[in-house]
């Protein structure tokens, strides 16, 4: 049945497997740490979300003004919504953010604009829909929290006092770096 291997060969194979696993996790962690240390930082107010979706066990679901990105019919026809694509966000004078789909190649950011990598919330809806905006995710939508603090955050978000400090990497990846309540930084995510 199973071809026998010497236990030494197997030990080497196990060492290889361990090295691979640690390397992948290490790459993942260093990628996130790099992101958290990235210089680009934006503050995104959290939108009140339907509370049924907001509080789910030990993490909160966060939504932003930029969770809907404007899209032209032409772009929609060309977009492969199963793959990540780029979205350009900009803040107006009043401080609120807006987003528009840029396509699958990274556009050059104009002054006051930031480029983010995004995925369609539902590729199916993005492909078949007809409106002038699609629902997108940036990887900033889940925030894992200590047990039992979900309700508090939910209330803060409903009162629109909650904002997220997001770190933006050079390739448009985004990570939650901290939380702001009433304009005060209350929690900064440590890299380690």
């Amino acid at each position: 049945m199973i071809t026998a291997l010497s236990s030494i060969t197997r030990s080497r194979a196990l060492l290889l497997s361990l090295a691979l696993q640690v390397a992948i996790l290490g790459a993942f962690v260093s990628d996130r740490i790099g992101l958290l240390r990235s210089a680009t930082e934006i503050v995104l107010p959290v939108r009140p979300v339907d509370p049924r979706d907001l509080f789910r066990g030990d993490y909160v679901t966060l939504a932003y003004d930029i969770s809907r990105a404007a899209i032209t019919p032409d772009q929609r026809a060309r977009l492969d919504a199963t793959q990540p694509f780029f979205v350009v966000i900009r803040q107006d004078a009043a401080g609120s953010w807006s987003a528009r789909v840029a396509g699958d190649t990274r556009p050059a950011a104009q002054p006051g604009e930031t480029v983010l990598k995004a995925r369609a919330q539902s590729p199916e809806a993005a492909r078949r829909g007809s409106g002038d905006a699609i629902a997108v995710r940036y990887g900033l939508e889940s925030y894992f929290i200590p047990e039992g603090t979900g309700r508090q955050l939910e209330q803060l978000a409903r009162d629109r006092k909650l904002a997220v400090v997001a770190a933006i990497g050079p390739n448009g990846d985004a990570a939650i770096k901290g939380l702001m309540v009433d304009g005060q930084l209350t929690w900064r995510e440590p890299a380690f």
Partner: protein
Amino acid sequence: MWAYRFRLERDLARWQERGLVTPEAAAEILAEVRAGRSGPSLAGVLSTLAAVLMGFAAMSFVAANWQDMPKWLRLGVIASALVASHGMAAWLFQRGRDAFAHAATLAASSLFGAALMLVSLMYHADGHPPELLLVWGLVALVSGAAVRSPPSLALAMVLFGGWSAWESGARHGVHLPFLIPWAVTALAFLSLRWRPGLHLAAFALGLWIVGLGALIDDPRSHMLVAGIGVAITVAGAIASRGPHSWRTLGPIIVAYGTAIAFVGFFSIQFVQPFVAGIGASGVEHGADALVTRALPALAFLAAVVLWAMARGHPGAVSVGVAALSIELFALLVDGRAHWLVALSGAGVAGVALAGERRLGWSVLATRSAVVYGAGMAFLALYAWQFWQDRPGSAGPRTLELVILAVLALGLVVSLVSWATRHGLTRVQWAAFAAFSIEVFSLYVNTIGTLLGTSLFLLVASLIVGALAWLAIRLHERGRAVTEEVAR
């Protein structure tokens, strides 16, 4: 282990008979097998239990303090768990405890998934969950292939399946990339000659192919599924005539191909018209449309069962028979083509009888098939006569009803005489019950008028009575001939 010892005892007895082994040697071999491989020792069992308990204690301690630990400590805990599980596997392999070592390798591969989830949780990275499954699967694949550990490969196959299902669900489209990791994992199973793994691979690919029917936005997608299934079946049948290594694989391929093709055929008949009828303009699918769709399915399944019976492949026979009975039951419930079910049931019974006589099929198989076929045929005839409550159908006319009643009664009477000839008491009673139900239903529903029913039953009783008289005469003459010969 038990199977091994049983076989060894049998073989030793044969070898002793042929003088290959002395009785003393045989006794010694058996004693060695009984003593040496009596499973893990008490100390081994207790230490494993202790290790499990300690593991749980460590896990609860970590879980209780997880939130308060700084990130570097959490990463350290995760890394140590990975190192420990790999070290454990290596140690067990060195001790020659392969079964436990494979379990530890599987644990190490599983732990990596947990580590991946914990790390993405720690950094609030919820990017694209299916990709995590893919990475996890690839790691399990590499570990399983490098260590030659089947359980880890099985985990990889399951994870690839989950990845593909998630991706195709999210995009509502066919997920072709699945085929690459599938093929690599299947090759790994093949190189280890691990049969359960090959079944898992076949099952995963089968699900993927069947998924095409739902995922491709085209009414012909089910035809594609059926076509692929038929192609696999034919390929398996050809392979079973090939060189030795293929000969055992062929019938298994046929069984999987048949299952896939049947899902396609079933959807063509009963799912797709239903969906299309709701979607577009309520297209009417009459009996003709159903029959056109059902005939290829029935022909294919009949061919598979006959082929597998002729070549003696029980697995393929089982799959074919199961599919055939689902098909006939679905047609019966659908109710648009009772004649097809009646004919198919009679066909099953007829073919089984012929197979017993001409091809030496087993008595049990043929008798079951005769009872099943006759039962299906009777149900179809009965439904045809009395269950015509579909909107728009007025039920059979008098002449039609008479013909159907004659057929049903003829079928039941033949079944009774067949069962009597072979001494099958229970079948006899079942046939009597069918006979009574048929007669009672005729009485309740009436043929034309009450007088008509009475006339029909009178004629029927005269015919059956005449048959009984004939049977007695034949029996007596037969006995007279035998006695004469004896004298």
